[in-house]
């Protein structure tokens, strides 16, 4: 399956991926409305780890044998049979954070605004062909491709 790969060499640490990820997962999908008007603050599911000059963006790796799915107590965390994308069905999620505990990458974040849920990368499956982070990276430091491409 296609995944998002980070190229640390060219990551400039601007965090535009975080901003556009948050917008892509907002109510309005409009950058200004999302940040200025929406009650639930937009939250990115991608995190830029930086200690300049080193920086890279990290998000869910959509593991083959995903520990978060095994650990999920409600069955909210699922892997798409066709797509391979690991998603969290937020209305079934009870916010127990077990997935966060078991994720080897630290790629799941807590969203405690409103109903407590675990928020994670869904590769923008419902919105776009290319994930928002990849599309908006100004330096092509994120690539969306098959492994080894």
């Amino acid at each position, binding site marked *: 399956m296609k995944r998002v790969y980070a190229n640390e060499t*060219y990551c400039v640490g*601007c965090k535009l991926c975080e*901003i556009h990820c948050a917008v892509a997962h907002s109510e309005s999908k409009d950058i200004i409305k999302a940040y200025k008007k929406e009650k639930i603050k937009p939250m990115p599911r991608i995190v830029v780890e930086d200690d*300049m*000059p080193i920086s890279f963006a990290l998000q869910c790796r959509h593991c083959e044998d995903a520990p978060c799915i095994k650990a999920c107590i409600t069955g909210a965390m699922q892997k798409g049979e066709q797509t391979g994308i690991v998603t969290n069905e937020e209305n079934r999620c009870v916010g127990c954070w077990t997935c966060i505990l078991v994720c080897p990458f630290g790629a799941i974040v807590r969203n405690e605004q409103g109903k407590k849920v675990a928020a994670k990368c869904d590769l923008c499956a419902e919105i776009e062909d290319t994930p928002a982070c990849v599309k908006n990276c100004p330096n092509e*430091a994120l690539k969306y491709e098959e492994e080894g491409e």
Partner: protein
Amino acid sequence: MSLNFNVPEFMVERNEDRCIQCEVCVRQCANEVHTYDEEDNKVYADETNCVNCHRCVLMCPTRALSIKKHSLEFRENANWTASAMNEIYKQAQTGGILLSGMGNPKPYPIYWDRMLLNASQVTNPSIDPLREPMETKVILGRKPEKVTFDEDGNMTTKMPPQIELSTPILFSAMSFGSISKNAHASLARAARETGTLYNTGEGGLNKEFYEFGKNTIVQVASGRFGVHKEYLNAGAAIEIKIGQGAKPGIGGHLPGEKVGEEVSATRMIPEGSDAISPAPHHDIYSIEDLRQLIYSLKEATDYKKPVFVKIAAVHNAPAIASGIARAGADVIVMDGYRGGTGAAPTRVRDNVGIPIELALAAVDQRLREEGIRNEVSLLVAGSVRNSADVVKAVALGADAVYIGSAAVIAMGCHMCQKCYTGKCNWGIATQREDLVKRLNPEIVSTRLANLIRAWTHEIKEMLGGMGINAIDSLRGNRLMLRGIGLSEKELEILGINHAGE
């Protein structure tokens, strides 16, 4: 600390209706203009350090930023302008010479814009380059007086080394040190992709770039940094740099802070030491001395590499060029007073040298009169801004042109002219790791190659319009040029008629 009399040059305008406090500007400004205040949840700007490089403007995801000229006015005075006064404040404070980056920005006449090209109408047909072949190939090198053949028709004349380029545009010398490794890599890749040459500048050649040898000109300048036999043989040609258009008569100075591990290894100097290029070559005080260096280099490379000699366009350029041709150079490079640089004393940059258009016309004329124009190729530099400038340069007599400023603009440069600070926000004129990585050679080499391709297409269109199907047929064809708004003397030097004549 006493009061700083300098006033800010620019203002940062932030549209608060659009600013989402994402702090991208804060993270991207190497001059630390933007700061985020958590208590107020607002991004503020201290514009004192703003150089108007547009990095924040273009990175802002909501287009909330704009940079304006500062609204602060001095009392109107045609003589004591704001910049004249600010420069005095700066010098009164520091006691130092003023430094500048890039080329001469003063409003001197730009002769490219005072010359117009011809086109065919009725009596000789124009050519459509999309339907008919159009040659932009250029062969640089010394051409023999005559060629001789044996009975079987094989050429018996020994040809001096020649370089074939697919376009009359080359990337001019920019050293690794003055520009980043990623910028250097981008130029090398683009030169290979488009069949032209880039130039190492006086910084030596990093081992990683030896693979681009066929598309490399290796430079030998007064500091002789990074020069050894392997280096001389690594490129397609060798360039002896006598002078540079932005700072004729002046040497170079790469501050020790920029001499990191890699720059030090490439230049063959200790890490952290200042790299000082003397103003003259200490072994060249005459044309005869220059001849010795040219032949030393030819000897070291087995007479297989053409030797270029680069000078700044100065008052006696024609006589100097004639001497260079007679000293055995294969190519003469002339750099006009608008040529760029990483750092030059402001007064030198803005007041020394002459326009490349006039120098080119005068040199081409002189070499023709002396019957030695065939012995050298002529390359010109010093602010060739577009393909029309290239065509006009060729019509005035140039074999090809160098582009430096245009190339860095293609890489993202926004002409803030602060290259000498080492804080280039676009990753071009810097060695700071976090800034260098902002320039991705994969993206930027494509941009450079696109520029060369676009200009080459345009050159073909203009040639076709003139009814010419090869750039060689335009060379020195000054009948294709007409002056506009020029004096008799200027027309005489350019060797062209006035429009309407």
